[in-house]
């Protein structure tokens, strides 16, 4: 993104003059106080919102010129772990995880799905319905769904917000593993302990939204 600004209404932007490039294999944290615009920033990244000004390019394409099918194609290359996980409650966990494949018309590789469930330690919950899962299980299921299409970029919005420390570390390890396999990762969080734990294992840059602008905040940690 280049000199990007966004506001929900009028002339008062929530985010202003932001510039950032996410390279393949990079690891970023996005911090900032509540209401600073972290979720909005992520929504801009997967084109749920369009910038009011500036340029937003994803995988070489100007997001503002994309058709609705183009946006759908972009989202298949971006795995998102939403804060509220966003499951379809009438489908079991395994089908929720495989949902991106199902709606893309791709064949579901059952052994690969089994491996993915084992990776997020949900093998025993494949047939469970989403409301039956705990907070940590839901977050891991959301991560599994985010990576099933083997996306180039993974966005996570407060993925450990409702989790205890052990579960947060388990989820972080999964994200680090994905990053080591070449995926770019961007995590929006206000948990500084999580950021410190991650920086011991990966080279992570920390960004902060303050005063509507994006700042590099690595030196503060």
């Amino acid at each position, binding site marked *: 993104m280049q000199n990007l600004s966004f506001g929900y209404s009028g002339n008062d932007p929530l985010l202003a003059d932001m510039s950032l490039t996410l390279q393949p294999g990079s690891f970023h944290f996005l911090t900032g106080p509540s209401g600073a615009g972290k979720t909005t920033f992520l929504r801009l990244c997967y084109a749920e919102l369009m910038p009011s000004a500036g340029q937003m390019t994803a995988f070489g394409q100007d997001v503002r010129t994309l058709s609705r099918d183009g946006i759908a194609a972009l989202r*298949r290359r971006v795995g998102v772990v939403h804060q509220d996980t966003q499951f379809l409650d009438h489908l079991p966990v395994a089908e929720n995880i495989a*949902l991106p494949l199902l*709606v893309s018309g791709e064949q579901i590789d059952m052994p690969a799905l089994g491996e993915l469930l084992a990776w997020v330690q949900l093998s025993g919950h494949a047939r469970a319905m989403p409301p039956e899962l705990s907070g940590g299980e839901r977050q891991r299921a959301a991560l599994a769904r985010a990576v099933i299409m083997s996306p180039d970029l993974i966005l996570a919005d407060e993925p450990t917000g409702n989790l205890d420390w052990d579960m947060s570390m388990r989820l972080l390890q999964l994200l680090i593993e994905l990053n080591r396999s070449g995926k770019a990762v961007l995590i929006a969080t206000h948990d500084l302990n999580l950021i410190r734990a991650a920086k011991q294992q990966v080279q992570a840059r920390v960004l902060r939204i303050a005063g509507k602008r994006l700042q590099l905040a690595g030196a503060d940690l």
Partner: protein
Amino acid sequence: MKKADLKSLDLAALWRGLTRPDPAGTDRVVPPTGFTAQLTVFSAAAMAFLAVFALALALATGRLAERWSTELAQTVTVRISAPDDQIDEQTVTVMEALKTTPGIAEARLLPDDEVERLLEPWFGPDVPVEALPVPRLIEITEAADGFDAAALRLRLQGEAPGAVLDDHTRWRQPLVSAANRLRVLGLVSLLLIGAASGAMITLAAKAALAANGQVIRVLRLIGARDITIATAFVRRFTRRAAMGAAGGTALGMGAIWALPSMDQAGSFLTGLGFQGWGWLWPLLIPPVAAAIGFVATRWAALKMLREVR
């Protein structure tokens, strides 16, 4: 969002999605909605049932109008009222005139016993026709190309002043136009039934789409194309409309078939039905209902998707 942004939902693309099998079970992404499902099936069945009757009415009144028009057009009479010393002479004159008039296939003087039968409902049996001043009646059968009634009327006026040509136009026209209007009413009813079906299915589809707003948002967020989401809804509602309409049509056809026969009821009631190949007409109702369901759900899906990025 601009309308052009939803061009991937064009009818051809949607129809391809609809007719293609769904082995992956993509439709399952839309949760089953009991209330809207039952509403759609019931309203489609009820409307199809009514459509069968409206169709039967339109076809029956069409036949009736044609029959009245044909039967009455072929039967024309000449009535001769004259003093006793002139009536035989004028009758001969009229018969001669009719024989030489182009377009008349046959002219027949009704004998006394037939006139007696005609008068029987009013005067009872054994009416002495010869003792009453009953006019002579001549029945004319038109040839296929018909005759010039105005010219014949003028000729009779000159040659036989007591003769009156009655081609039944005065009372034939209102009957035929009444039957034609009934046919139009039947067709208008069919159109209204189609429109009401469309409105009901649209309402049910909109209710289902609104209830599944969060599902649609999630599907968009994970990369589902509009066509995939719309097809799941359209397929479901089209199928329900077709199934409901098939049931309603079968019931309607059964009810028409069970109407009393001509021997048991008046000729108009028995005419309300299908004859021969006409029984195939109602079979068009389920495909038409499916088409209405298809168009109505697509329209509702378009409106809903415009609100979801």
